[in-house]
Structures are given as structure tokens and as C-alpha cells.
């Protein structure tokens, strides 16, 4: 009965079979292509990390202008008492420079560490002559040692991790050997603190209004659309807005003159306060949108139960909705903080200082931040600055990764709580 099927298949079936195998082949090829695209993402991330780590560790050859051993017979420079350091400074540094340093901050009032840093910078003057990447330092070590012996006979050669404790605690310096990111980190922390103090209450307040109180009329729809649009505005525009409003128009307030906290001669609006407020404007839409989603996720039954027991609207929100939405709100806030820490362009426009060595001491100080430091170091042509930029990038990424990881943990804990 099935004779006609067991004989040779009809042309239609033949065509179908060929076509089917072609389709399967295409499907397999494309599947490989899709998979390769994801591998591309992994490769990019690994390449980026390799590039940065490669520049952050390596052999360094340097020379001293005045070897530290000759300054204080036998005693290592770090252990000299303050009077000895002051004596060395007075002997070796010109009177003009001494006077200028004294005006910045009296030499006798400086700590031992600060005097040691000055001696290193002004007298010993270590100068890096060449650096090598990590890969080179490991695989071509012998060649490098020969090259140094040949070209730089006076130089010391040592394996250096550009990212070390001294890097984190030294202030900015024009000499790459002594430069550190302390001023930058403190500037970043101060700026972000002001950003959060400004944006968190306003953002959560706006989110509460939009989710709980706002009826569906034209004004509220405009507000919502407006917030969504603001989230997509390039960050540099916020910088220009901050420049126009906080730095220029509100200069008496942001420079601290109004509060009597700054000298009118050198103060201007380019302070930590302006920077924090500008970044606050930038992250405000993000906080609002995230908080809105968190509040929306609170089940309505909770609110209804609260109303049923006679609570007012604000009591319901304050005692029930907000605590329930808090993990989501905090997640959004942490993501906004990490966005704000990584921002460079708006702060350059607002006017981060190109070179300051004094730590920021309050909201009215001049400032620089870690990303801006990385930008400045990257823009210099010398190799040593590339190494510094790489080390600073590692610091920045560790900071951001820990922030993001805590946000993810918070999000998981929130999900677990809602589920069970």
C-alpha cells in the first residue's frame, strides 16, 4: 500500500529536503556568529583589564638629582626629625621658593611627613628615566637590565607597583614619581556627598509625588515626560548648566563669600559645592525613575490595609510604602552614586582645578576628582603618566565595582524579601 512512497521521492519532497539542510546549515552558522558576538564582549573586557594592569606594574629606572644618602649621613631620610628636615630644606632650596612655600602654609607648622615630601620633591628630585610594562618586565627582564646598565648607569632599577599605599595617600604632584591620588579621592568623596545630600531627598520626594499623589492631568504628564527626557541629556550639558547657574550666577553663595568662609581675593564659584550640585542635577532624573519603579512595585494591598486601619496618606507612605520600597530606592541611589563618581565632562566644564595639592577641607574648597585626574594624566605625553593613569583607573574601578556589587546584593535581598 505504501508502494508509491517507498519509490524515489517526488521533486517537491526533494527540494524540501535540500532546502531543509540548507536552512539548518544557515541556522548553525548564525548560531556560531551570535555566540561569537558574546565572546567579543568578554574579549573586550579582558583586553581592557589587561591593558590597565599591564601599565600599572612594571620595572622602573630612576635617578636622583641629589642622592638621599648624601643628605643625612647614614640615616634614612624617612627617619629624620623635623628640625633636620627643615635644615636640609633651608640649605638646599632657594630663598624665594622657601618664602612661597611658607606663605602657602608655614614650614614650621607642617608635619614631618609633609616636610619629608617637600625634601623629596625639591632636593632629592627623583626622576624616572624609563618605565616598562608588566609583560615586558616579566619576559624581557634580562634585556631590560642590560639596557639600563648600558644607557643609564646611574639609575636604580626596581620592580614597582604603581598602585601602592603611597600612591593612595600622596597628594598630587607635578613629578610622576611622587604623585598620588589622595587629593583626587577626597575631592570625589566630598563631591559625591554633596550630590547625594542634594539629589536624594528631592528625587525621592518627586518620585513619591508622581506615584502617590499625582493625578493623570496634563501637568503631571509633562513632568513625567520631562524627567524621561532629562535622563537622556548628555552630561556635558549639565556641566554647562552648572557653570552658568552655580558657578557664575550663584557665585556669592557657592564660593562661600556669603557665608564668610572664603577670602574674596581668590574665591570663585568653582568649588566642591558647585560640582556637587551640578552632579546632583545630573543624577536627579535617574534617582526619580528608579525610586518610581521601586514605589510602584510595592503591592497595593499594603496601602489598602493601611488606609483600612484609618491612616492618612502620608502616614501610609512614611510607615509602609517607603520602608517596603527602600531597598529598591537604595539600589537606584547607589547606581546613581557610581554614575556620579565616574563623570568627568561636567566637572571639567564647571571648573575643576588643574593642579591643587591641598586637600579639600569643606564645601567651598577648590577641587579635583579621580576621573579628572585620570584625564589629565592621560593627556600628558610621557610614559610615566600613562602608568599613573592606569593605576588611578584601577582605584576608580575598584571603587565603582564595590558600589555596583553592593547595589546588586541589595537588589537580590529585596527580591528575596518580596518573594518570601
Amino acid at each position, binding site marked *: 500500500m505504501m508502494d508509491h512512497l517507498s519509490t524515489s521521492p517526488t521533486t517537491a519532497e526533494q527540494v524540501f529536503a535540500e532546502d531543509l539542510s540548507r536552512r539548518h546549515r544557515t541556522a548553525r552558522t548564525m548560531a556560531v556568529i*551570535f555566540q561569537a558576538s558574546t565572546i567579543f564582549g568578554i574579549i573586550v573586557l579582558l583586553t581592557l583589564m589587561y591593558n590597565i594592569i599591564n601599565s600599572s606594574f612594571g620595572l622602573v629606572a630612576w635617578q636622583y638629582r641629589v642622592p638621599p644618602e648624601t643628605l643625612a649621613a647614614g640615616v634614612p631620610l624617612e627617619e629624620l626629625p623635623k628640625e633636620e628636615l627643615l635644615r636640609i630644606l633651608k640649605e638646599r632650596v632657594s630663598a624665594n621658593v622657601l618664602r612661597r612655600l611658607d606663605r602657602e602654609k608655614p614650614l614650621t607648622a607642617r608635619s614631618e611627613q609633609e616636610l619629608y615630601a617637600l625634601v623629596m620633591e625639591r632636593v632629592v628630585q627623583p626622576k624616572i628615566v624609563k618605565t616598562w610594562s608588566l609583560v615586558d618586565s616579566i619576559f624581557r627582564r634580562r634585556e631590560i637590565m642590560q639596557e639600563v646598565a648600558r644607557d643609564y648607569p646611574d639609575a636604580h632599577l626596581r620592580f614597582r607597583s604603581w598602585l601602592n599605599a603611597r600612591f593612595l595617600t600622596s597628594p598630587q604632584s607635578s613629578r610622576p614619581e611622587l604623585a598620588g591620588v589622595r587629593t583626587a579621592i577626597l575631592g570625589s568623596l566630598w563631591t559625591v556627598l554633596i550630590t547625594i545630600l542634594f539629589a536624594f531627598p528631592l528625587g525621592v520626594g518627586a518620585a513619591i509625588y508622581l506615584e502617590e499623589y499625582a493625578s493623570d492631568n496634563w501637568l503631571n504628564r509633562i513632568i513625567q515626560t520631562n524627567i524621561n527626557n532629562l535622563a537622556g541629556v548628555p552630561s556635558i550639558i549639565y*556641566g554647562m548648566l552648572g557653570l552658568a547657574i552655580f558657578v557664575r550666577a550663584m557665585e556669592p553663595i557657592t564660593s562661600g563669600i556669603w557665608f564668610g568662609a572664603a577670602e574674596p581675593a581668590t574665591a570663585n564659584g568653582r568649588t566642591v559645592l558647585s560640582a556637587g550640585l551640578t552632579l546632583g542635577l545630573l543624577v536627579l532624573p535617574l534617582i526619580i525613575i528608579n525610586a518610581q519603579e521601586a514605589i510602584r512595585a510595592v503591592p497595593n494591598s499594603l496601602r489598602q490595609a493601611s488606609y483600612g486601619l484609618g491612616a492618612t496618606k502620608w502616614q501610609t507612605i512614611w510607615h509602609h510604602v517607603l520602608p517596603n520600597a527602600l531597598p529598591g530606592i537604595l539600589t537606584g541611589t547607589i547606581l546613581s552614586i557610581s554614575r556620579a563618581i565616574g563623570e568627568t565632562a561636567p566637572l571639567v566644564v564647571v571648573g575643576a582645578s588643574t593642579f591643587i595639592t591641598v586637600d579639600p577641607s569643606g564645601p567651598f574648597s577648590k577641587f579635583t576628582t579621580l576621573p579628572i585626574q585620570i584625564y589629565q594624566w592621560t593627556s600628558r605625553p610621557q610614559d610615566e603618566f600613562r602608568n599613573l593613569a592606569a593605576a588611578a583607573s584601577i582605584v576608580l*574601578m575598584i571603587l565603582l565595582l564595590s558600589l*555596583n556589587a553592593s547595589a546588586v546584593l541589595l537588589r537580590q535581598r529585596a527580591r528575596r524579601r518580596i518573594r518570601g
Partner: protein
Amino acid sequence: MKIGAPGTGPSAGLSTSTTLPMAQLYKRPRIREAVIQAVLFLCGVLSILITAGIVYELGKESLRFFTTDLWESTNKPLAVSVDASAELLEVGPAGAALRAGDIIRLDGEEMRVESVQDNIIRVVRGVRGTTPAPHQAGAEIFRSDRVSLVEFFTGTQWIPQIGRFGILPLVNATLMTSTIAMLVALPLGLAIAIYLSEYANERARSILKPIMEVLAGIPTVVYGYFALTFMTPLLRTIFGRDIVEVYNTASAGIVIGILVLPLVSSMSEDALNAVPRSLREAAYALGATKLETALKVVVPAALSGIAAAFIVAISRAIGETMIVAIAAGAGPNLTFNPFQPAETMTGHIVRISGGDLSYDSIDYNSIFAIGLVLFFMTLLLNIISQRIVRRFREVYE
């Protein structure tokens, strides 16, 4: 016995309240609630103030930019001395040609040219608040050259020192970096999204999604460093050191593409995941392969979300600043060669404002005009993306 009278009901002895006011059943006005609501409303309105502030500030400074006089010397000195009231001036034959409508300046006085005949010009004295004064023969005549909108949008040179303010080199560089970025990010992002939503199992997804999130969280400065120290040498090795310059738009564009890749892939993946399983199951039931289902059924169904993702990515790429500031070059340059340096709009703004320019110079005000153009470009793109999502979103059941 009256109900409710004190001392009579079952709780007599405990109750001390007066008669229940049964008629007053309206809500007690709570002032605190109203105040709180007002405060929260103000928080919401703040966002409108921000947008208004952006437009106002950018517009005000841009207006100042377009109305600043650039006085250029005409090399045409006054031929005959005049007093403060003369309306006809005789000028030298050489130099730039004066036209009716020009505003000229002699010493401190500004005049408007009404008509020109050979070497005699008829002027209106003392315009724009200046007072007429006598002028000596040989006094230099300066002509006001304001930046017109036409010159701004169609000029091909941006050289502030000689008064050329054509934005096309900057816009061209922006479009070039964004195009290169899209060529990298769109195909790869869509491919990754299709893989993650259609092909990947749980384990692959749990590895890939955190990697994408890490890529998305890397600050743009670090990407800029990567572009300068890795991508540019890579391109130079591939294409030759004499073809690819140290600063070029290609490496900046590629790295911007890597920057927006997580954005495209996560938004596209959300769109693909939103397509209900029933559509896929129906396609499988009709004998389609996985690829055909993905490309011919799921992607078209999620098209609005994917298009929105593309547009958001383009908008992000246009607004990107630090990568181009570090890797793309520091001088406006109208070129279509991606291996040459060219400054984009954002890079220019950062360079000018990071330098030491005084607040009211025309260079400084020009960045606000550029910023205004940038703001409207990204605003337009964002509005388009929202419109697309709203209009073309497929509604299932």
C-alpha cells in the same frame, strides 16, 4: 433616656465626650498632609525648572554669541576729516567694499551705512548708543561682522581667531564617530541580545549578564585611556603608521561603540524577552528553525523596542565627551577620513571650557551655541524613540 447623653449609655462612667456630631461627617482638614503634598509637588516641578534652566541659559549665552560684534578692519581709512554732524563721508579707494546696511565704527562712534556711491558713503551717525564725534582723515574704519545663523550652520571652518564660526567640522566629526560607533554596536548588540534571549542557557546567561553590566559601569575616562593606549596602536599596526595618525576618529568611534554595546544589548534583550512564548511556539510548530523563528518572528515583533534601543544608543554616542576628548584630536577638522584627527562638538566644548578663557569672550560664548545644538539633537532623538515605542509597540492580548 437620651442616647449618647453623658452618664447614660452602657459605658457611663467611662465616657466623658460630648454628643457625637453626627452631621459632621466630612474629612477633617489635615494641614500637615497638605503641606507635605505641596512640598512633594515642588520636588516634581523642579524637573521642569531644570529643563527650563537648560534652555534659558544656553539660549541666553547663545544669543550673546550671535550678537557679539567682531570688528574687522576694512583697510579703508577715512579720506577727509569730518565733524560730528556730517552725513557724507569720503573714504579711501582700497580695502574692503562697504555695503548698505553695514555697521561701521570710527574711533568710538558707530554708524550705519545707508548708501554707497564710489568713494562717498552716506551714514547715520551715532547708532547703538554711541555719540557722534569729529574724526580725522586717516582714521581707520572697522566693520561689524556678527556671526549669522547661516554662517554658523553652513560654514565649513571653525577658526575663532579670524572670526570663522562654522559648525560643520564639529558636526561632521560627531556624526563620523557616532556612525562608526553604531557600525560596531548595533550588529553586535543585537546579536548578543538574540543569543541571550533565544539561545543561551541559564549558566551562560548568569556569566554574560554580569559581564555586560561591568562593561556598562566602566567610566568613560577609562574607555578614553583604552582608546588612546590600545585601540590606536592596534589600528596603527593593522593599517600602517603613516595612514593612521596618533589621534583619529576611528579608534574613538570604535570605543564609543564598545561603550554603548551593553546599552543596546540590554534594551534589545528586554524587548525580545517581552515577546510572548506563544509566538515562538507557533513558529516552531510550523517547522521553523530556531534562527528563522528568531529573525522572522521574534525580532519583527520586538522591533519597536529594538528601534528605541538603537536611537537611545545613537543619542548616547552623540553626547559622549571624554573618549573623543582623549583620543580623537584637539582641533576642528572637516574631513571624511576616519584616520585623521577631528574634534567633535563635545570635545570642543570640553577643551575650551577646560582652558583659561575669560567669561565674555566670543570663544567662550560659542560653546553655549554648540551646546544648544547638541541639546536639541539629543532631545529630538529621545522624543523620536519614545514616539516609536508608543506607536509601534505590539500589544499582546
